[in-house]
């Protein structure tokens, strides 16, 4: 199957791809929201000890969430992982329940039963499930798409996972089934080069993740995961085929985490030079430069966004702090219906 590399989208093609100023600014705002939300979460964890348990930050990958979600429709469903705050925010989950979930409060997305690793479950906005089992969401997404097809909707199930997920059985079985049955799934691999300390090429011997995916017989796209425009265009193209009924598609987004695997991890296994190179390509700065250059917004406008986001984040923390924990007696209600 074809592999389409969309890592660089010439500026002149933007209109043709639906990359309007509005869209670019929407993506920028979402990315700033993710960035500030997570910086706050990190601070609450490391400095204040108000958040405990595993906390995996999405910092540096914001363009992927923003780019993909910008192309999705509200009724499309998203499934993600333990690294899902960014997907949740970009798909429209309000910050208050998201933050409250990190605190384990009853006002959280999952009533505090799930914490950061599964905070990205918010049915109302089509954020369906967040599994902390690597690739656990892949076969589930296939089933979500089966239901969509069964119901005759035009919706798509989108599932996010990392580069480390492509070597496990669930990935293989989920992709194969979706391909054989021609189901409307968009598989999005955020290839940030590492699964914990393990580099992609130490864990797989295929030429690339995209090559592996395409061998399942699905159209495959490669995007620059640090460039929201590239991600948006690739997603849009992938969705076109899926909505036409051509079956699943695969999108590999090449990107990099600004931090380690979890908040505790300093990622000392990554070469400094490599880190420096990637950190220079901050996805927010890249998009900012674009919108400023094109006069879509002024510095002041961005500052305003920043201020608004700052406030929303702050409010979400206050809200979380004020919120109660569920009574233990209530828990039983969530085991069986």
């Amino acid at each position, binding site marked *: 199957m074809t592999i389409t590399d969309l890592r660089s989208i010439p500026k002149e093609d933007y209109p043709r791809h639906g990359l309007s100023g509005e869209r670019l600014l929407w993506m920028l705002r979402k990315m700033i929201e993710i960035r500030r939300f997570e910086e706050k979460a990190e601070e609450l964890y490391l400095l204040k000890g108000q958040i405990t348990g595993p906390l995996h930050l999405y910092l540096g990958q914001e363009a992927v969430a923003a780019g993909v979600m910008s192309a999705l429709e509200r009724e499309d469903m998203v499934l993600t992982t333990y690294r899902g705050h960014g997907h949740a925010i970009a798909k429209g989950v309000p910050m208050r329940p998201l933050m409250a979930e990190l605190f384990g409060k009853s006002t959280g997305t999952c009533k505090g039963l799930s914490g950061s690793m599964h905070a990205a479950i918010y049915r109302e906005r089509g954020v369906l499930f967040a599994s902390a089992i690597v690739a656990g969401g892949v*076969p589930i997404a296939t*089933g979500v798409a089966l239901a969509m097809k069964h119901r005759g909707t035009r919706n798509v199930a989108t599932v996010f996972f990392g580069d480390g997920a492509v070597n496990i059985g669930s990935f293989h079985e989920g992709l194969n089934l979706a391909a054989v049955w021609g189901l409307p799934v968009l598989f999005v691999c955020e290839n940030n080069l590492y699964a914990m300390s393990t580099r992609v090429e130490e864990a797989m011997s295929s030429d690339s993740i995209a090559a592996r995916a395409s061998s399942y017989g699905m159209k495959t796209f490669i995007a620059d995961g640090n460039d929201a425009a590239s991600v948006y265009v690739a997603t849009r193209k992938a969705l076109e085929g899926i909505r036409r009924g051509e079956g699943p598609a695969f999108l590999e987004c090449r990107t990099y985490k600004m931090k380690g695997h979890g908040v505790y991890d300093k990622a000392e296994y990554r070469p400094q030079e490599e880190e420096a190179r990637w950190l220079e390509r901050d996805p927010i700065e890249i998009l900012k430069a674009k919108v400023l250059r094109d006069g879509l917004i002024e510095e002041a406008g961005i500052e305003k966004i920043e201020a608004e986001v700052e406030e929303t984040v702050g409010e979400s923390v206050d809200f979380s702090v004020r919120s109660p924990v569920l009574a233990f007696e209530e828990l039983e209600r969530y085991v069986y219906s």
Partner: protein
Amino acid sequence: MREITLADALNEALREEMLRDPDVILLGEEIGVFGGVYKVTRGLLEEFGPERVRDTPISETAIVGAALGASLLGLRPVAEIMYMDFLAVAMDQVLNHVPKARFMSGGQLSAPLVIRTQYSLGRVHGSQHSQCFPSWFLQAPGLKVVLPSTPYDGKGLLKAAIRDDDPVLFIESGALYRTKGEVPEEEYVLPLGRADVKREGEDLTIVAVSRVVVEAMKAADALEERGINAEVVDPRTIQPLDIDAIVDSVKKTSRLVVAEDGNRSGNIGATIAAEVVERAFDYLDAPIVRVAPPDMPIPFSPELEQAYMPDADKVVSAALGLFG
């Protein structure tokens, strides 16, 4: 009343529920063209078409995962896992995902899927195709677990399982597929979580599960001849477990034997014994005895498999041991 086999009773349950509710779909290996290796899904592909009766590749994780995903959007998938042993292949979905969707989402989601499977103990299938380990799923809270022992129960409970809003693991006994029993023509649904007293008695309670219910009934006959009047209780579902019914029976009889196909250590009987001793300690006149296979893989040789399996004789001697 007409008598039909367990396989046919289950087939009727599937068919009726598919007719009733267009959201019921089936998926699994060989369930379509082949009609299921034990013919439980026979004719359904022809009747409902390939969109609702889906043959899958050999990929149990995908089968269960896809059933789960579809259920989250409100379908009612019934996934077939050909042999219980192969549940292990899909165990990540079965343990880490299926039972927890509701809880982890704080009640936002429910997962009304059914996983049907069967264990083939008694059919000379050897170590990798005969295992019976329902008690595992007592340690997977969020799942309901059903083990029918008669065509009547099979049909009524499968219909209930499909209608239930929680995920249900429905474990059939392959050795019972061809046994016949009375099944009414009219529609009926049985409740999950309710034990059934298969035979009333005063002197002894035998709790038996799945295939072993048949053996327990034979044992009760044999005991009757020796003047012992046994009550046979079939829990039918082990999660939820109708422990009250069992405790009530024991309060009446003061003696308990639990008989099943799960090997001795860690089996269902262990949980039943522990619950009974905690709740009805003062009523017990004798130790609780379990009739179960020994802690070993299942031998192939037909003679050895028979020796390995609980049967009526073993239930009888265990019971007799409590009087004496």
